[in-house]
């Protein structure tokens, strides 16, 4: 079916339903956000373990975590995406075959989440590690003196106490997560950037659709900024400012 995009107005082009491309863009935005949120949260979890591993007395775990964070910070995200997108599923399946399990299928969404969380985990490790180091040692020692078990110290003392120090870094990481989802466009996953590119290619209105996508990203980043500023202000309420 031939659609005459040239004669349509901007609002018709951006309309939510079919000849317009607004729906496609919003669907892409939703996918981008889902992947960013999941990747950010899993990355945060990796970051907590990574920070504990890097601060532990065990030199082997310290070295292994150092290898992980160094590698992620040195290898381009685009290359990591290729590695995880193409190499990981086949490697995983040949491993599963070898130990007699059935093959699993890693779809684009899961691969995307894996990539983002892998990258986020490395950066989150560094953020949380330096935030934990900013906790006065006396507080941890006091917890030890009360004979608190290790895990309890972690979630009662370390994590809440490091949060105000980590929040600026974490807000930065969240923005990186939203922007990194755009890289999935390169492997053909229709998130916001690729959705915009498809709309632009079909309608020949390159500037319009790519700018609209940019505007959507910008709105997300500005809203997140306001949200995190609010969180930081709340977290710092009880802190002394010397």
């Amino acid at each position: 079916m031939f659609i005459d995009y040239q004669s349509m107005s901007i609002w018709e082009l951006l309309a939510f339903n079919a000849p317009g491309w607004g729906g496609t863009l919003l669907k892409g935005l939703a996918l981008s956000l889902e992947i960013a949120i999941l990747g950010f949260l899993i990355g945060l979890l990796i970051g907590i373990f990574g920070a504990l591993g890097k601060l532990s007395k065990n030199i082997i775990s310290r070295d292994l975590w150092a290898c992980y964070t160094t590698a992620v910070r040195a290898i381009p995200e685009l290359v990591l995406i290729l590695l995880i997108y193409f190499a990981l599923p086949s490697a995983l399946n040949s491993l599963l075959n070898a130990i007699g399990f059935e093959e699993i299928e890693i779809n684009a969404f899961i691969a995307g989440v894996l990539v983002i969380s892998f990258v986020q985990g490395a950066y989150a490790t560094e953020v949380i590690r330096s935030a934990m180091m900013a906790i006065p040692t006396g507080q941890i020692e006091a917890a030890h003196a009360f004979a608190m078990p290790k895990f309890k110290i972690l979630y009662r003392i370390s994590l809440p106490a490091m949060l105000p120090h980590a929040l600026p870094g974490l807000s930065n990481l969240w923005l990186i997560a939203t922007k990194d989802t755009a890289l999935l466009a390169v492997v053909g996953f229709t998130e916001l950037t690729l959705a915009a590119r498809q709309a632009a290619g079909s309608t020949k209105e390159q500037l319009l659709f790519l700018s609209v996508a940019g505007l959507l990203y910008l709105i997300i980043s500005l809203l997140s900024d306001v949200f995190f500023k609010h969180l930081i202000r709340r977290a710092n309420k009880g802190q002394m400012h010397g």
Partner: protein
Amino acid sequence: MDNIPSTPTSLAAKKAPQIFRPFTWLMPHRVILIGLVIYLISLLINKLDWYWIEEYQDDILIGLWRTLVLLVTTFVTGFILAIPIGLVQVTGPKYLARLAQSFCSVIRGTPLLLQIWLIYYGIGSIFPEIEWLRDSFLWPYLTDAWPYAFLALTLSVAAYEGEIMRGAFAGVPKGELEAAKAFGMSPFKILTRIWLPRAIQRSLPVIGGEVILQLKATPLVATITLIDTYAVFSKIRQETYIVYEPLLFMTGIYLILAGIIALIFNRLEKKNEAH
């Protein structure tokens, strides 16, 4: 990440592992780890197919050269732009500060891939409609991907580094600037002799990391038909149907490049340490 306050004790703890002592590499677990890595690498070299390297040698070198040229030119140009962007946010006037600030948040708030596409496909689609441009000497350049890639990467550096330079300019102790003023230095001289060198010195560790980030951003230009290192290896993968080897080799190349950059900046930092 630079606004994380740190107590003196945590600073000392942070610095300790960074001192490079050669004999720490000979700790038993590290020897085993290094041995494991060497074994793995030799396994990779022996078991996998590497015959294509010879065939594509020239392509790889050209790709590498392009990546490096793109990295150096865009970073230097972007950094030169970043200096006024950072400076006006500290000194004013207010409308210029506002302008610089919004430039930074627009670039930093959108993905670089989208910016590259917007500039290449979006702005690039306007040019053919301008009659006189098609006959001008500029036309051959405008149909090439280079200028677009260069512009996008440079703007990105300008925004990210502008933000860092703003903090660095603001962080130079007021007393030093006042002392320079008391010596009767002109504002321009204060900037070039005191303010800028001190700001750059203070931000050197961060800038080293930013150069590596820029290196990691360069493969994005492969999406607008520029043949850099990344694109060469994509081509190899498509032509030889080999999946893993080119990917691993490319990963190794980027790791080594990042390592070299880190080493260079470590040297620079040591040389320019504040006393």
